[in-house]
């Protein structure tokens, strides 16, 4: 259980670190990043959001909303998650995705907990905040699937986004429980069979906010890299939706490699309060999960 505890903390820290690392180069192409930074390997701030170094964006903040709602309720609470998204939106966050905004507004004004299917909903806004659901459902795949899709549908109702959420959750489960990369790679065969779009070798270098591009980038660098730093540096230097690819890759790599493998110099740069919160929440979530309950 100690191993598991360390990995879940690393997963949530990895999410925040990936967000802060990639955010300064969000929307730049790989070429532009190369011209500006050579290779981006440090948490530097700046970018289109003019961030302070170590500042996180909506990827981490929405994940915190999900985590806090579950912990506060002592269990699954979709209404609580929606309510926290709404409260967060009113604070004028540093950034909010268009599809997320529309879904949250839908809840604020109509109280609805599910947005209708939309062809444009195949963005990565639901999967980027999936980690807390994966931690909370550790040990129960059916529960993961049920809750992953339910929280996704608050803002994103599209089969590609649903599939990305479920499979990202499954990979996090496997990583935390100590399974090998080979086992994780086999798990993805299910996703690729159902939705061949997600095939990531050969990797085409697309890293936009389209959920297929995002997950291809995450899978490609996660399986290719030999450690946490290599995974994240590879991911964010691909550019595109770099804070989100960075956050998702960071969650997965954190879950797989554990706390020791996350560069200390990156953690030192991060917002103190965020670091404390993610650690506390990760711990609470795993304790509440089926795996945690078994003890």
């Amino acid at each position: 259980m100690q191993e598991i505890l360390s990995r879940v903390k690393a997963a949530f820290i990895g999410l925040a670190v990936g967000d802060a690392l990639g955010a300064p180069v969000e929307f730049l192409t790989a070429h532009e990043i190369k011209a500006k930074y050579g290779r981006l390997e440090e948490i530097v701030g700046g970018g289109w959001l003019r961030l302070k170094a170590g500042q996180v964006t909506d990827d981490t903040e929405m994940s915190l909303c999900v985590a806090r709602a579950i912990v506060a309720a002592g269990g699954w609470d979709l209404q609580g998650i929606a309510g926290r998204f709404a409260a967060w939106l009113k604070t004028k966050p540093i950034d909010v995705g268009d599809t997320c905004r529309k879904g949250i507004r839908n809840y604020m004004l109509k109280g609805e907990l599910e947005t209708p299917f939309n062809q444009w909903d195949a963005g990565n806004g639901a999967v980027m905040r999936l980690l807390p659901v994966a931690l909370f459902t550790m040990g129960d795949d059916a529960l993961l699937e049920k809750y992953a899709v339910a929280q996704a549908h608050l803002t994103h109702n599209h089969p590609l986004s649903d599939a990305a959420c479920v499979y990202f959750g499954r990979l996090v489960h496997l990583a935390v429980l100590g399974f090998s990369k080979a086992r994780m790679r086999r798990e993805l065969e299910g996703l690729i069979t159902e939705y061949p779009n997600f095939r990531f070798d050969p990797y085409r270098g697309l890293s936009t906010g389209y959920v297929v591009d995002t997950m291809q980038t995450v899978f490609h660098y996660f399986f290719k890299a030999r450690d946490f730093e290599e995974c994240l540096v590879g991911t964010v230097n691909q550019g595109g939706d770099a804070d989100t690819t960075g956050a998702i890759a960071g969650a997965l790599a954190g879950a797989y490699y554990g706390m020791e493998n996350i560069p200390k110099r990156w953690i030192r740069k991060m917002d103190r309060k965020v670091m404390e919160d993610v650690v506390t929440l990760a711990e609470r979530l795993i304790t509440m999960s089926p795996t945690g309950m078994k003890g």
Partner: protein
Amino acid sequence: MKLIEAIIKPFKLDEVKDALNEIGIEGITVSEVKGFGRQKGHTELYRGAEYVVDFIPKVKLEIAVADELVSKVVETIQNTAKTGRIGDGKIFIIPLEEAVRIRTGEKGSEAI
């Protein structure tokens, strides 16, 4: 979809923007305009000075919204922009047949 056009007193802009933000609305296009009203030749306070000219500086907001949001948006603007004194302005609702987000090509209420 509708295009909501609101003519309001300039000092009310921030307050109206904040009130719209509270209901999840962030996208607005604003222009500076001159207003001529039924109440001609009145003096209005604008940036600490009294205007006795027949036009008054106003601010025009254009907000494209999905149909189901229209009454909420109109209500929000009206409650916030109102002072009860002459010159508070108007809200116009214009049909919007199509909207496109230039960056992505999205259409319809996904675009706004």
